[in-house]
């Protein structure tokens, strides 16, 4: 058996025992969260609050995609930890702008 076939078997085993139902559920949840985000755009929320909520929802969506669609849920714990910590650090870099957001807030600029 070739190496590719061997690892292919591993992939198959990952999926075996897991029906497609969770994927459909995750897809539905992602669409629902998107709908909530769009509805929020029609509410005239204060920008910082709006940003906080949208970022929170985006992180939830990202987690769902990574865990189920990208199969991180089925990977080894060490891979999960190493990759996710790195990714979270990367994404956390965006939080740097919060300091400036507070400055704007204190200045009262919309």
């Amino acid at each position: 058996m070739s190496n590719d076939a061997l690892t292919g078997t591993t992939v198959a085993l990952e999926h075996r025992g897991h029906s497609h139902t969770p994927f459909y559920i995750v897809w539905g949840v992602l669409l629902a969260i998107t709908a909530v985000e769009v509805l929020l755009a029609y509410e005239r929320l204060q920008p910082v609050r709006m940003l906080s909520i949208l970022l929170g929802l985006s992180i939830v969506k990202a987690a769902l995609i990574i865990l189920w669609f990208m199969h991180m849920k089925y990977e080894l714990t060490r891979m999960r930890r190493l990759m996710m910590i790195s990714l979270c650090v990367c994404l956390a870099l965006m939080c740097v702008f919060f300091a400036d957001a507070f400055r704007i807030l204190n200045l009262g600029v919309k």
Partner: protein
Amino acid sequence: MADVAVERQLGHAEFEPSLFQTYSNKIGMWLFILSDSLTFGALLFAYSYGRISNPTWPTPFHSGSIVNATVMTAFLLTSSLTMVLAVSASSFGKRKAAIGWLLATMFCGIMFVVLHVREWIGLINEGMTPSKNPWGAPQFGGTFFTLTGLHMLHVTIGVVVLGVMVLRSMGKKFSSNDIETSGLYWHFVDLVWMFIFPLVYLMSTRIV
């Protein structure tokens, strides 16, 4: 050096087993995804900094634009579902089903690009360029086109890669590993949009 040590221990030319007990293509793709996250993270940071620090930041996206962007998001999310079903089918050796799901993913990707180009054309017709726009802060155009343009380029490359996967699957080079690896890339493109959509579009709406 390390390889030599392993060779001596095992007595024959073999490498250590993978730390993550998976194939190297997949690990390589994950490393690429991590590095690409930095690229998009930096661009999103630049956009957000401009958005927050500039009181005259434009809010050009009206209700029609939001509906368009929401449909684009739905296409991308649906493409992720079809992609994961393609990976699942390929892992069981169901070649025809995998090809079908891959084609469905490509269709969703193409629809995303078409809607995105249509939106770009609308903004350009309203007078927006990378250096100026009729609504306010001139850097809006540059950051918007760079961020969404790079993402659109990623989607386009993804569609091409999936096309190659379909052609290979039709021939004798059907590989579930390759389909899974390209799937990782595709889901990453979807993931990035989950941040672009709210930060760029929903935070810049002008709904009256």
